[in-house]
């Protein structure tokens, strides 16, 4: 769910190593940070960002300029990190991780109070914002999302139409048939591209948990289950679909040599039929289509091929949540930045995502979902006292639902490279999960 930062996952370790060296070098983000006597924000503000692309093209400088029109006494500086997740997590062992930063996905809720400043009561903030619960702990919100995402499948409309598929598939079987039709129509086209090599795009499949049973409580129930890969569960359905498409040769020839940047133009040019990605990707794909001269309309967005009572469901949730470093000495300005960024900056609209504001407009990019009447589903946060339970089981069991390894293994087995069967994998996942639960004591 933190797509932008994952591109250079390759560099994770090199980056971590250099960060250790860097943190020593760049100390002190904003020492002279005091508020004026009348309480208006002033001083230096260091904002960490995962959007290195927006830093390079100057978008962030524009944001800073507009912010300064309102708060002229604040000097905003940005620091972009390509391996945001890995580098910031390591940096959080020091006190020096900027004044404003995006909450790293692997920080568990019970750790929030150790690292971030509470932004207010969830109930109160919910008057204005949504998608807060994921980064809340004991009734306090620790981060506000910059944009909301939903989950689905980007596809090339021309390719699908030429193959004679005009209705969105409503079951996994129909989806497989549609991909087969695409392949039959033009064997040169890859019906579904997994982006296996880069790894993180495979984790996007995880975003569909909860949709299959239309159960907002799915994740919490999974933390109580010893066999989440049993026929009928969300994970069973999602992973079976991945298994089937790979097993039937509907994905790229050699998954170990895929290339994320290239996949965008391949999709735009109709060499790829579809890819399972969050809604954040729509805009990037449309951009690629415009660059390729095929036009933004080529790119469509489908919900996961599964319906409950004749309705599609799509999970929604926050992208990165902005938070304030607990050790920041300019919390007033930091808070001003977060509020301004979420209400005034126009970041969410510019990125084609759902607004973090309760009353925000529906973005143009999701008009396909609107036409299909897709129901948005927001997962229920864990009950008090169990906020970190799921994350703890997930890492203790080494299943790693959000790591690439878990689905790379399924792809390898499905294409016959590892000799495992689907049932063997599901059984192994179940037993690991059960062992993890036992160890954590859930």
């Amino acid at each position: 769910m933190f797509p932008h930062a994952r591109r250079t996952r390759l560099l994770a370790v090199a980056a971590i190593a250099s960060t250790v060296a860097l943190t020593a070098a760049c100390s002190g983000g904003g020492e002279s940070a005091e508020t004026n006597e009348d309480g208006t924000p002033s001083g230096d503000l260091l904002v960490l960002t995962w959007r290195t692309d927006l830093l390079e093209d100057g978008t962030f400088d524009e944001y800073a300029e507009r912010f300064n029109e309102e708060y002229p006494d604040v000097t905003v500086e940005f620091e972009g990190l390509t391996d945001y997740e890995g580098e910031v997590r390591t940096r959080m062992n020091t006190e020096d991780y900027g004044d404003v930063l995006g909450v790293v996905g692997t920080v568990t809720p019970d750790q929030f109070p150790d690292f971030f400043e509470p932004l207010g009561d969830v109930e109160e903030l919910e008057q204005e914002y949504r998608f807060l619960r994921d980064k809340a702990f004991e009734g306090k919100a620790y981060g506000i999302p910059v944009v909301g995402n939903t989950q689905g499948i980007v596809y090339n409309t021309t390719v699908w139409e030429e193959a004679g598929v005009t209705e969105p598939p409503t079951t996994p079987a129909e989806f497989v048939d549609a991909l087969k039709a695409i392949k039959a129509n033009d064997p040169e086209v890859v019906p579904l591209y997994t982006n296996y090599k880069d790894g993180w795009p495979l984790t996007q499949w995880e975003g569909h948990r909860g949709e299959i049973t239309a159960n907002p409580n799915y994740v919490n129930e999974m933390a109580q289950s010893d066999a989440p890969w049993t026929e009928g569960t969300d994970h069973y359905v999602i992973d079976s679909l991945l298994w089937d498409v790979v097993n039937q040769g509907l994905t790229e020839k050699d998954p170990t040599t895929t290339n994320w940047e290239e996949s965008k133009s391949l999709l735009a040019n109709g060499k790829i039929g579809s890819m399972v990605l969050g809604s954040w990707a729509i805009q990037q794909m449309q951009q690629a289509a415009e660059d390729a001269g095929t036009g933004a309309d080529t790119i469509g967005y489908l919900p996961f091929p599964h319906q409950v009572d004749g309705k599609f469901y799509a999970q929604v949730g926050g992208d990165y949540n902005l938070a304030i470093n607990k050790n920041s000495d300019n919390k007033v300005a930091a808070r001003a930045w977060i509020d301004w960024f979420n209400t005034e900056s126009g970041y969410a609209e510019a990125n084609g995502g759902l607004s973090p504001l309760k009353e925000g407009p529906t973005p143009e990019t999701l008009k396909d979902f609107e036409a299909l009447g897709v129901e948005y589903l927001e997962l229920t946060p864990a009950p008090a006292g169990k906020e970190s339970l799921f994350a703890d089981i997930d890492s203790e069991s080494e299943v790693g639902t959000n790591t690439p390894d878990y689905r790379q293994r399924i792809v390898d087995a499905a294409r016959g490279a590892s000799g495992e069967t689907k049932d063997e994998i599901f059984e192994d996942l179940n037993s690991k999960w059960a062992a993890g639960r036992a160890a954590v004591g859930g």
Partner: protein
Amino acid sequence: MAGVSDVVRAEAAGTRNEAGLLPATARKPRGGWGWRGTPYVFLAVPLVLLVVFTYLPVVNMFWYSLTSWDGLDKTKEFVGLDNYVAVFTRPELFRVFYVSLYYFAASFVQMALALYFATVLSFSTRFRNLFKGILFFPYLINGVAIALIFVFFFKPDGTLDSILALFGAENLQQQWLGNPDINNISLASTSVWRYMGLNFVLFLGAIQSIPGQLYEAAELDGASRFQQFRYIIAPSIKPIIGLSFILAISGSLAVFEIPFIMTGGANGTATFVIQTVDMAFESLKVGLGSAMAVILLVIVLVVTWVQRKVVPEEKVNLT
């Protein structure tokens, strides 16, 4: 008077020297030079760097390996030797050492090639400096660029497949990285391509330190090029070959960069280090990951020690 005192002084100096009471090093320093502490001042800089960036982290790693730390938590819970017990009770964690065998085998190919090129280029060959540069160059390219180049080289319809097609060998085309039976060979070859230059330079340096008269004498005696290699070059660079061999073993146990950047350790290409990194940063078990790192360190030390015992270092004497 002046003459007498000179004689006395000379006598005094002579006696002292005969008695050997004042060796040159013990003389009083003149000016700032020659102070006893000087070498330590110079040593301090590298030592501080070494301690701060190598020994302290290693000590820390030992400490982490005794905790259940996740890499972020404010508290590091002490769990004693639990992590070590966990590693040794999970045989699947050691299965990846089997991947190291590919790299170990490849290191022999690498040394043989390096030795061959070093020998050929130590004789006066045309364009030898150009060839030296070409052979060493891959070692200078950064790892990410190599990953990009070779993923493109190995991908379906990529460079390798095109070359095969050019020679009409389409039936040899396959998934060089996707096929789990050969992907480790593809990766090990990439590793050979990359590190051969380093071995080459080491060997070449050793070969060039052999005095030229030996070749001349050998030539006069009618020794062929191969005999020169067999009886002059090979024995005189034996220590370097021994060193390369040790490096090859410890290197193949600790392979990391090439498979990590090319396949991320997916599809059966994971090595012990990749697995350690995944454990620490994907599964967020820094404690367990540190224990694995400590174990690898111990294994490498033991292997090196055994190897030194089996193949003891010998002094080379060419005359």
